[in-house]
């Protein structure tokens, strides 16, 4: 009885494995699956480019990401060629490589964008500080000069003004 159960178990496992493998193989040779993978790879590459451009606009150096984007494009091109030639499993493989590398690029680009946005903009703060110091200095000198001019005018006015004694004697 035990032996029969064991044999039945082995047969069930083998049949299950065969079914899974058959489905997997069938899936790999399926043109619609290859097309879906191609579309997904293309979308991933576009998303990777968008994130890279964001990081670049934030001020990050994206030269390595650009190299990787070029590799993704090569994968995508290989996938397209394989699809056109009817080699769907090769096409799917290349598409998946493109998606995988695109995801890495997206992650790295987001990291770079956050890093750039968090970094204090030293150049801007330095310029503002410079302007503040220059403005303050000009204001101090200017206000002092204005004050001097008015003080001189006031003194001249006092000098020219007839004195109380002169008025009384006159």
């Amino acid at each position, binding site marked *: 009885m035990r032996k029969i159960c064991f044999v039945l178990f082995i047969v069930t496992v083998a049949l299950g494995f065969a079914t899974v493998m058959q489905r997997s193989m069938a899936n790999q040779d399926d043109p619609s699956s290859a097309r879906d993978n191609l579309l997904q790879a293309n979308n991933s590459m576009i998303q990777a480019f968008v994130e890279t451009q964001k990081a670049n606009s934030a001020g990050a150096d994206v030269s390595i990401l650009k190299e990787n984007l070029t590799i993704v494009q090569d994968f995508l091109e290989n996938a397209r060629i394989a699809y056109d030639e009817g080699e769907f499993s090769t096409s799917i493989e290349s598409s998946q490589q493109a998606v995988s590398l695109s995801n890495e690029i997206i992650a790295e680009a987001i990291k770079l964008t956050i890093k750039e946005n968090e970094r204090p903009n030293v150049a*801007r703060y330095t310029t503002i500080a410079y302007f503040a110091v220059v403005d303050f200095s000009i204001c101090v000198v200017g206000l002092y000069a204005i004050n001097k001019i008015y003080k001189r005018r006031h003194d001249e006015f006092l000098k020219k003004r007839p004195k109380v004694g002169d008025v009384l004697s006159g």
Partner: protein
Amino acid sequence: MFLVADQEMLLAQTIFVCSIILISSFVYIFMSTPQKQSFFQVWVIGPNGAILEPVLAISSNQSYLISVGVQNTMRHIEYCRLTTKFQSAPLSNVSTTSVELEDFRFFLLDNETWARNISFEIDSTAEDAMIRIHGIKLDGSYFMFNLTSAFDSDLNGFFWQFRFDLWAFNTSSFDFYSTNIWASSPFLNMTQ
């Protein structure tokens, strides 16, 4: 410091301080605005950077080489698409016909240049008063089509050219848009 306190002096000082603040703000804004222009450049030259003659005499099934280049000065990375079109040269009164060939897609960093040598070979035959083009071998790939070219009596020849149009990827619309920047090869005179 402020020994004399009358209204006229206070007004003068206020105007002075406000002027300084305004002027420095304008200067700061002017300095912060990027002065560099952003644009693309496309060019067609001969191999090894040689300047091409305005008209090239072309024979059927002979291989020729041109070099096409693109420079990005848009201040950030760009995803570009360069379309290649073979068209009858828009000269005198001959109507223009064209055919789309290969397109190139590439990423370009700011201030980076993409350049590529393109070899081409035109498969054509002469018929009565026209040239029939059966196809073009571009960088090893054969593009088959059937175009005829009428004889341009004003300029005494059959003139064709390659036109390279630059497209760039728009991250808002998720599609390529035409930059309206293009370059064309010299006129290819196919009388010989």
